[in-house]
């Protein structure tokens, strides 16, 4: 599958292997068909009821003024007012958008390329490869909430390592998690720390699938390592690249945990995810308003989810 960078050849398209198994379905007894319906139906209903319907519910609620307490029958539809309010009269929204974009840019321009670079370096027989790989992806098994705490030991204003090393004391000391000018960068470093290992793993898996003769052919043609990578290997990795791109975007959009454990996403750490949560479960409980932000988040995510699905499903047809 990885030997060609050409997108799905239309010839092998959707009609390819479909009729044979379809015939098999008709051979089944009625009892078998009931069993199959249950085997697929039960999980499908669960996913529908617990994921899709609530998502739809959020979209509907975003057009109402519900406060989350009154009976559902008293919900009033107020059109797009929540959306105009979010955009025009709610300053944290601007900050959140800026922070989410910052997240995306940093993950995309720093953490993701670094992960890829490390994968390329470690995708060869080096002594100690296992150690290097493990060291880089150990943060991946830790929860983001825990990552937030672990980095607090470094960022703390009075007891943290960073201020001690930089010699910042007393009035000069910086509260890396508290100062709204720097705290977003502090959590970006912590998030990237975890992201690099994840991306490295994905690329290592992708590189393992690359036909070695491709690289050899390029080497014989006199291409250097860097050129071999960018003009031969990288294009072949197209499916991985798209998966990584989408994962990076979705991680940036869903960013939540660290900001939430640090200060519930306030004071410089506003993110779309934390705004949704604090509007929904905060003191004010502005359900319609929070849902409008959630819907915007859903809409942007959907675009990338579609890209992701098209990529992986196309890869499947190719197989």
């Amino acid at each position, binding site marked *: 599958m990885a030997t060609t960078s050409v997108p799905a050849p239309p010839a092998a398209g959707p009609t390819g292997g479909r009729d*044979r*198994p*379809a015939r*098999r*379905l008709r051979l*089944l007894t009625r*009892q*078998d068909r009931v069993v*199959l319906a249950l085997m*697929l139906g*039960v*999980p*499908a209903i*669960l*996913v529908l009821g*617990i*994921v899709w319907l*609530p*998502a739809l*519910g*959020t979209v509907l*609620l975003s057009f109402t003024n519900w406060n989350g307490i009154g009976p559902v029958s008293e919900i009033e539809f107020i059109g797009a007012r929540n959306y105009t309010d979010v955009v025009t009269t709610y300053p944290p929204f601007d900050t959140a958008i800026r922070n989410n974009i910052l997240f995306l840019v940093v993950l995309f321009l720093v953490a993701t390329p670094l992960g890829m670079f*490390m994968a390329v370096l*470690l995708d*060869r027989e080096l002594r100690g490869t296992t150690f*290097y790989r*493990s*060291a*880089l992806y*150990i*943060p991946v098994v*830790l*929860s*983001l*909430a825990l990552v937030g*705490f672990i980095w607090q*030991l470094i960022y*703390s204003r009075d*007891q*943290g390592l960073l201020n*001690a*090393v930089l010699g910042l004391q007393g009035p000069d000391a910086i509260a890396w998690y508290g100062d709204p000018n720097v705290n977003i960068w502090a959590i970006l470093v912590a998030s990237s*720390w975890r992201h690099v290992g994840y991306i490295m793993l*994905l690329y290592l*898996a*992708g590189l393992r699938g690359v036909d070695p003769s491709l690289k*050899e052919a390029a080497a014989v043609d006199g291409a250097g390592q*860097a050129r071999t990578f960018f003009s031969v290997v990288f294009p072949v990795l197209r499916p*991985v690249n798209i998966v*990584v791109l989408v*994962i990076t975007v979705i991680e940036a959009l869903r960013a*939540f*945990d660290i900001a939430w454990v640090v200060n519930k996403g306030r004071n410089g750490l506003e993110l779309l*995810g934390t705004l949704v949560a604090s509007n*929904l*479960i905060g003191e004010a409980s502005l359900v319609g308003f*929070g849902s409008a932000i959630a*819907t915007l988040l859903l809409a942007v*995510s959907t675009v990338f989810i579609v890209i992701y699905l098209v990529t*992986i499903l196309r890869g499947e047809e190719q197989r």
Partner: protein
Amino acid sequence: MSTTTPPGPVRGRVPQRLEPVAVAPRRRRGLTAGRVVLYAFLTIMALAWLFPILWAVYNSFRDYAFTAVNGYVSFGGFTIDNYVDAWDRGNFGQFFLNSLIITVPAVLFTLLLSSTAAFVLARFSFRFNIAMLIFFTAANLLPQQALLIPLFRFYVNVDLYDTYYAVIITHVAFQTGFCTFVLSNYMKALPKDLSEAALVDGAGVWRQYWQIILPLCRPALAALGTLQVTWVYNDFFWAVAFIRSGDKFPITSALQNLTGQFFTDYNLLSAGSVIIAIPTLVVFFALQRYFVAGLTLGATKG
């Protein structure tokens, strides 16, 4: 740094980052400058990445009184009291139990439901195959916050709010999407003859699933199981959303009990962090192969 080239082929002299490291089949060279740079870089990266964890471990073994006087950049004051303290004060025994109560059923049901769905989608063909696959896979990618309020209301209405069931059910539904996708890919790769032979033998579909296909999926199930245990254990969001009673929270939220309003004992916090990380680190060291397989199986189709 380019002047002290160790004896070796001249080609490696110019420190062009990666150049001199030959592709595997070429002759083994000695230590070229490039190699030294490469190893130095890798070592620095690895140590830098391990550092925050090692720092937490290091300070978790030190007495607060000692670090308060000497600062954290110091050596000495070793003790294991922080662990004892953290365990007691954080009530970690209870919280670990809670995590276990949530994680085990959530992972088992996720694997059961996703494997049945994957079995149908991978081994049988009907008109909505692709649509169903999208339906499952996309569900796992939606932002969790976007489901919060309707789900919350739902659980309140059916009296499941503030119970483990709410958290478990949500985990199962959310993770089933991902696992269905991975398992259906895996099952598709199994030879078609298997099912045909079973059909000829008159085995029903359930027997086909349970006795033939599922045992063959053991590697994929192990990989997914490992990954899911880590994810569910690490989750923070659903627990915070659907549980209110302080004594029902999973271990991930226990750390908050150790942070004071105005003053935080960081050595204690370090010990708490290490305790919480231990199960995932055990997974990391013991089941690393499965964990990596699970993670990459999903994203790149193995």
